[in-house]
């Protein structure tokens, strides 16, 4: 009765009307009380259980453990932060510098063109420490002529350009 009042409190104006309606609902509820649900037989229950149990995931336990581990919000959040930090550090780092450093560390590089061979690198730098960016250019002439060797470089932060025939 209390629940009925709560459900229909704004629907009926007087208490008498409410009571009258409640009685009419009682007959409905009495009819509902007579409803029965046919039970499942033991064999039906067994069949449903067998199929349901067989239908569960069969992954190995370590995969489930890992999935369960990463399903925790705190772990997922921390993992997201860590991945984000790694990604940002990769994106914002000066990759060109790294490339240049790597190439500067090369001992000797040789560039070949049709008429010249250019030698530069750490060995040449150490060999001619007084020059800036030194490089040795071997100019090929006619087949019979002797190749000309020259050292190219700069001095005073690029103020003076030096060509030295070797």
């Amino acid at each position, binding site marked *: 009765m209390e629940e009925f009042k709560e459900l229909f409190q704004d629907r009926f104006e007087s208490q008498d009307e409410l009571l009258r309606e409640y009685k*009419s609902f009682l007959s409905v509820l009495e*009819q509902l009380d*007579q*409803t*029965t*649900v046919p039970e499942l037989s033991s064999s*039906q229950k067994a069949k449903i259980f067998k*199929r349901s*149990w067989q239908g569960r995931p069969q992954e190995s336990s370590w995969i*489930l453990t890992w999935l369960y581990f990463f399903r925790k919000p705190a772990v997922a959040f921390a993992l997201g932060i860590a991945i984000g930090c790694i990604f940002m550090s990769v994106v914002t780092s000066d990759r060109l510098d790294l490339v240049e450093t790597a190439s500067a560390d090369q001992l000797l590089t040789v560039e070949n063109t049709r008429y010249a061979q250019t030698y530069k690198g750490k060995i040449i730098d150490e060999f001619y420490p007084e020059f800036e960016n030194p490089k040795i250019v071997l100019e090929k002439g006619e087949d019979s002529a002797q190749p000309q060797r020259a050292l190219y470089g700069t001095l005073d932060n690029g103020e003076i350009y030096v060509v030295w025939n070797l």
Partner: protein
Amino acid sequence: MNRQYPVSDEALIKAIKKGDRNAAAWLYNRHVDRVHRICYRIVLDTSQVQDCVQEVWLKVFRNIDRFQCNKSFAAWLNTVTANTAIDYYRKWIRHDNHVGSDEIRTVVTDANPGERKLDGAFIQKRIREALENISVNQRTAFILRYFEDLPIAEIAETLGCSEGAVRTHIRRSLLALRTKLAGKLIL
């Protein structure tokens, strides 16, 4: 609820998570009748109920790892059952092009219903027809409250709606049922 059983649901679930089939069977036997009852009253078709019950238990065993043991298994199972049965009913209605509506309908009843002899089978049939004529959400709210005696708050949680919405569902269900069963035009 678990106090009446020597082994709690939670203990069984822990064993099931480790793959214990006997624990699963035990838990299943403990709750299968309630699941069947709810499915039967939501789906309203004997030929479909077994499949619906199986779908519920498939979901239970597939997702048992997600269940947190600090919560009530019965409440979780009610949620899985109700939502699975609602989805099943809607799919089945669409697939089968079932005659009927998911909306509330005003039903014109017999002129003199009292003249009919209301035997058990006839009442069952009328109740089924009456339940068919209310939306599946309304029916579920009503079934969980009236037949399963769940509190309004738990039904709201199960259906993912407010307590006010559940009360409205139940009120409309009662009105629709009375229209059908008592022979009055209310809606």
